[in-house]
């Protein structure tokens, strides 16, 4: 019996859009960025496989952050949706999308968050869903508020939502942050600006979409997430 063919790897190039580990303006990278060069690794079965999900692993109410408490959360209700794609434009189906965010006053339910801003008993700021056959995901939530952080004097995080996506493999895993158009705080934020290219940074900003905005109910924002695609189409042998 001949050896099975080597697995087809995933395309490199994320280093062109991602920030380097050391971003001096972003203070907390200074002691956490490795000094030794990374060791390049040809993808093996361990890199091209990853956990799987089914629609049964997430309950249907987990995508709606506005209806799981006694009353409505305070803030502007929004719909956030988009598609998870690979960079050949193919939908990434049945993959888990997780999100977490501050409330409309810029506060997280977290022991380390000491911002003098109110918690909202009707908002926990967490959601999960599984992409459908077109790679689409959707959340209903409220628009998060900005909050101060300790990077430099008078530093503020712009309003953002953390999004975590798996994709098909260990190497396609992505955690990112999504921002809102026109936010004046983007210019001074070392986290957003850690991404070196202006076009890549723009891809972290969602866009307002009137078409999917629901009349008398909620503004809609669209945010597509693009993961690494395969190096080449696997060939049947």
């Amino acid at each position, binding site marked *: 019996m001949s050896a099975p063919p080597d697995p087809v790897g995933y395309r490199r190039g994320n280093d062109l859009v991602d920030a380097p580990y050391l971003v001096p303006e972003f203070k907390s*990278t200074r002691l956490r960025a490795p000094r030794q060069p990374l060791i390049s690794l040809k993808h093996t079965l361990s890199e091209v496989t990853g956990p799987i999900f089914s629609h049964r692993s997430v309950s249907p109410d987990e995508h709606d952050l506005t209806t799981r408490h006694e009353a409505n959360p305070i803030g502007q209700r929004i719909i956030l949706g988009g598609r998870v794609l690979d960079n050949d434009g193919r939908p990434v189906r049945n993959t888990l999308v997780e999100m977490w965010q501050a409330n409309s006053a810029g506060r997280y339910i977290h022991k380390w968050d000491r911002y003098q801003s109110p918690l909202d008993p009707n908002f926990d700021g967490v959601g999960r869903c599984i992409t459908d056959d077109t790679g689409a995901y959707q959340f209903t939530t409220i628009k998060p508020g900005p909050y101060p952080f300790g990077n430099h004097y008078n530093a503020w995080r712009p309003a953002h939502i953390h999004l975590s996506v798996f994709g098909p493999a260990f190497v396609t895993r*992505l955690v990112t942050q999504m921002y809102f158009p026109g936010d004046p705080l983007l210019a001074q934020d070392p986290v957003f600006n850690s991404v070196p290219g202006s076009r890549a940074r723009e891809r972290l900003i969602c866009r307002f979409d009137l078409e999917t905005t629901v009349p008398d109910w909620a503004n809609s924002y669209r945010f597509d997430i693009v993961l690494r695609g395969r190096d080449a189409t696997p060939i049947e042998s």
Partner: protein
Amino acid sequence: MSTDLTPSQTVGPYFGVSMTPEELTRLVPEGTPDAVVLTGVVTDGEGKPVPEGMIEIWQADREGSYDRAPLGEGEAFTGFGRCHTDDDGLYRFLIVKPGPVPASKGGMQAPHVSMAIFGAGLVKPLRTRVYFSDETEANRTDPVLTLVDESRRHLLVAKVDGSVASLDIRLQGDGETPFFEL
């Protein structure tokens, strides 16, 4: 060229609001006879513990197969784990030691666990692998471990003592963990 990719961003310090439920640290149920505790401390460039670390692992099953059950549906083996480091920078998973998995050209890789380290101040995950000290022979010929300079290989090999496998992760500086570009 992969120019339309969505850039990575740090998980920040507040991912613990939802991302790290206790059950994700157990790849096998408590009480599994051959369960192994995989544990260690994550430290920064000054040797201080990193309490805002989110560690993810991905591994084959006992037979070295990546066939797996969907996550979140029951206790069948999913191969995936996630852990929030504690105030002392400690991570801890309950795993089974994976079997050897295929390498290219019909070779085999030594038993290993793939690891991704996310955290506040990490703009993208650091990727590494955990090997096991009781696999001296397999480790010697592993095609990935041998990519690492010989003087640093031990930094990827967890010390196995009974049912505990220990490996500390140093993000920067003396004894810095070798990290991979995937």
